[in-house]
């Protein structure tokens, strides 16, 4: 028993570990709640693209903003919001196939960002931090930024919950109700952008997508009710943050990767064992049905 307590409290002796845990939980919850809409509306590619596209902004912040994490935060936020508005404008004007356009523009911007950062001598280390995150390096002011902006995102979603649900499930109804669908859609994109920047330091650009969609997708497998799905996703997100950090502490692996791996393990559990519609459930059900058919040959023939 004492060992278990020691196992849990051991890492908490380090202040950076405490800050990291708080940050991971906050980010896990914010990502999961926003991710619910990302998964339901099929915007996964958009999230991935956006997280890559802010790299040039980070590079500018890195080269001219002194490279402190707070400066990077503001530059990242600016780029992310501008980019999400840009995508909104492009996708509304139609014409260009969305997936192709997003794919190209963002690969291009990502490449530009890497090229910019690589002009600096020590780029390998810094690039690694931006790409893969370093949750244990979160400063107190960084934690405040995460809390304030993450809290704002959640608050806006709670306030506009009904409207967002309507435009997600039934855009036609939304238009009929004279909801400002375009405005709400753009707002949602800005919320996603903010979430990505908030989570950047925890999981980094490369693994951002997993934080955004995996908890929500796991919850999607477990329930059909949206509020339950959101709560479950938040729980899964927070849990992966905590377990991932302990894994990283004791296993000596990169924190971002550890969080994402825990998240995926939870997804796999949901995929295999979800009551009623999990893979395993389906398997046994199929087998039962076949067995039943075999034992009543006449019934199957009818």
């Amino acid at each position, binding site marked *: 028993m004492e060992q278990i307590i020691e196992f849990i409290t051991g890492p908490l002796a380090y202040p950076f570990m405490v800050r990291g845990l708080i940050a991971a939980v906050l980010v896990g919850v914010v990502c999961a709640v926003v991710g619910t809409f990302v998964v339901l509306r*099929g*915007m996964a590619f958009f999230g991935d693209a956006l997280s890559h596209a802010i790299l040039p902004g980070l590079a500018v912040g890195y080269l001219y903003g002194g490279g402190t994490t707070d400066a990077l935060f503001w530059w990242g936020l600016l780029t992310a919001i501008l980019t999400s508005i840009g995508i909104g404008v492009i996708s509304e004007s139609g014409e260009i196939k969305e997936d192709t356009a997003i794919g190209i523009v963002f690969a*291009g911007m*990502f490449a530009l960002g890497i*090229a910019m950062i*690589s002009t600096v001598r020590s780029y390998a280390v810094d690039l690694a931090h931006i790409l893969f995150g370093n949750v244990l390096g979160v400063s107190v002011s960084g934690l405040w930024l995460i809390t304030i902006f993450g809290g704002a995102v959640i608050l806006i979603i709670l306030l506009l919950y009904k409207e967002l649900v309507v435009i997600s499930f039934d855009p036609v109804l939304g238009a009929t109700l004279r909801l400002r669908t375009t405005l709400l859609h753009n707002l949602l994109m800005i919320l996603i952008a903010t979430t990505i920047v908030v989570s950047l330091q925890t999981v980094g650009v490369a693994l951002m997508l997993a934080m955004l969609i995996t908890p929500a997708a796991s919850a999607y497998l477990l329930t059909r009710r949206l509020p339950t799905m959101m709560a479950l996703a938040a729980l899964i997100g927070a849990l992966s943050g905590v377990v991932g950090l302990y894994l990283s502490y004791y296993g000596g692996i990169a924190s971002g990767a550890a969080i994402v791996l825990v998240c995926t393990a939870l997804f796999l559990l949901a995929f295999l064992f979800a009551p009623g519609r999990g893979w395993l459930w389906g398997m046994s059900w199929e087998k039962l049905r076949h067995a039943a058919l075999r034992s009543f040959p006449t019934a199957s023939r009818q």
Partner: protein
Amino acid sequence: MDLTLIFTDYTLRTVALGAMVLGIVSGTLGSFAVLRRQALLGDAMSHAALPGVVLAFMIVGSKALLPLMFGALISGWLGALLVSNVVRHTRIKEDAALGIVLSVFFGFGLLLLTYVQRQGNAQQAGLDKFLFGKAAALVSQDVITMGAVGAIALLLMLLFWKEFKLLSFDPAYGASLGFPMRLIDTLLTSLIVLAIVIGLQTVGVVLMSAMIVAPAAAARQWTDRLDFMVALSALFGVIAGVVGALVSSSGAGLSTGPVIVLVISVIVLISMLLAPNRGLFWEWWRQRRNRQQLRVSAVLTDLHTLATAHGDLYHAHPVGTLRAARPGGGVRRTLRVLSEQGLVRESDKGEWGLTEAGLAEAERLLAAESTTDSPPEAEIATASEPRRDAVLDAK
């Protein structure tokens, strides 16, 4: 840079050849990915290749390209298989499934990479080049391997050209003809994984998806024929690959992937703006001309209507009257265009009236308007110019 060095300098020649192979293969096979809207699949599979590369290295213990490519092939393929299984067995949509597979495989790959780097094996140095690519590290043995694998992929593509075409444009028709469409789909996906695998060392897993999508998307702008598109896409791929690889291997330690992707992005941008027929610039120009055309006929018929009301068919009116009849601006400019065509003339008092030719034209327009509800022929030609891509878009 002295371009003849490509033929004489060993490193440059190897790099240029390697980039060429990569450009051709990813350009041709990418065309099918773009036509089938599988940009995200390419992205997912290139990220998914990373753990395969590192695992293959851990098993073989050397950086020989062939085993690493084999590892990448297997794990990329496994990723694609997982995606299709998740989509089939759960209600999770394809984009979310791709995203999950992408980040899981990539995360796992990074984990393995950090693990290998901590082992202190001298051989591992340079394995992280697979993230962003390092063309300068190519040796001629690698290029031969890439060439051989690429040749197999291209040969298979030519053999199954008809089937792939069917799959890209009308899979339901193909199935009704009795083609095994699932099998063809799997084959095409495998070939795309092969194309990705070929580029891993040069471009890296992170940006390889751009090499699959971008050349094909650029080529799509210029042509509506599949064979031209594939050829053009290969050409763009080669240009981007060779230019990018040469710049990065001559420059100060730039990774190859970003440079190649920047070059291909510029090509895409030019194609999006300037390609005849589909380019945004021409689109804008056509719209402008259409609006002008519509305004011309509108002002002409307005003049006719006003003049008829006065009983004198050549009765002249001030610009203000015409403006009141047709708000929206551009009246004076339109009148100037009309007078250049000899359809209207300005009187001494600055008032505008129809000429004889103008009267005939206005009557023709009005007659056409009253017999059919559609606009007169002169406008149809410009207003809804039949787009030549109708065949491809019909899909």
